[in-house]
């Protein structure tokens, strides 16, 4: 696989970029492989906290989200803790999307701003998150499930996007429907790429 390397850094973990697919199964395999190769398993805690300030180990060790997650995992088992992380993220993502939809009601024949905005925001966030988790920080167990599969997945929607396009056509606004679909896809892809590049360039985020 010929992955382009934007902004190589000491954090860059080339061995983690073997899988193209974002499937849960490959993620789990990747975590296991990465964990086995980790030179310092004692500090393989949560990446988002560690990435923000790896020097603050004494403070983050107090009770980081990773500690909470690790305790939950110890008590529930990895699969159930992962499911809980997805449910928690899914709850927040759905509430955020529904909230935006209520705040920006969609009138028939007009541009569906609410779905448009949550979809683009989610594409940017997920591009950044998955790249950061895969390439820039130590492998973790729950951030991907919580923020990626749960929050970003539930925040964004494909079904509403398509039914909105259909309703625009049905209402006699075929041109607007085509523009909505094309602009959503073009901007969504551009923002996903932007998120990926931000994750590779950012030193502390």
């Amino acid at each position, binding site marked *: *696989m*010929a*992955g*382009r390397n934007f902004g190589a850094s000491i954090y860059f973990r080339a061995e983690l970029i073997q899988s*193209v*697919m*974002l*499937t*849960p*199964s*490959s993620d789990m395999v990747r975590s296991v492989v990465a964990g086995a190769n980790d030179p310092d398993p004692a500090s393989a805690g949560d990446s988002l906290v560690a990435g923000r300030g790896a020097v603050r180990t004494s403070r983050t060790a107090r009770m980081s989200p990773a500690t909470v997650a690790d305790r939950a995992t110890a008590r529930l088992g990895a699969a159930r803790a992962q*499911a809980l992380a*997805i*449910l*928690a*993220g*899914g*709850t927040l*993502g*759905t*509430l955020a*999307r*529904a909230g935006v*939809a*209520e705040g920006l009601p969609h009138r028939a024949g007009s541009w569906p701003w609410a779905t448009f905005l949550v*979809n683009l925001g*989610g*594409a940017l*966030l*997920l*591009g950044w998150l*998955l790249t950061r988790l895969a390439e820039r920080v130590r492998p973790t167990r729950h951030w991907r*499930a919580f923020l990626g*599969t*749960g929050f*970003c*997945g*539930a*925040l*964004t*929607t*494909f*079904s*509403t*996007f*398509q*039914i909105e*396009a*259909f*309703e625009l056509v*049905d209402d006699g606004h075929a041109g607007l429907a085509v523009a909505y*679909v094309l602009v959503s*896809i073009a901007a*969504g*892809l551009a*923002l*996903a*790429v932007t*998120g*990926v590049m931000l994750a590779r360039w950012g030193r502390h985020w």
Partner: protein
Amino acid sequence: MVAVTWAAAAALGALGALARFRVTALVSARAGTDFPLGTFVVNLTGAFALGVLVGADIGHRTLFILGTGFMGGYTTFSTWMVESERLGEAGGIVLLAANLALSALAGFGVAAAGWAIGQALA
């Protein structure tokens, strides 16, 4: 809208996200291809189901819970975009374009078909 409606939509959205995770894992395990078939299957089934719900005219509150809640949590736009980005990065420009075009066209088609079926059922 009352709090219980929001709670129901949020709970079903969470279950939708978990269902997406399970279906994606199931499909990817069997597919064995570079094409992100799991998300494709999830998004098309969700778009079809939402089409049926909207077409059947089930009322604002029920549609909010089942449509905005479950189907919104089940289907995803962000994973579709990031998987496309990964395909492009791996050199699969054709796969990238195919992933975008197939999902967009087929998604629209199944949403429209679902809507027509929903209308017939209503």
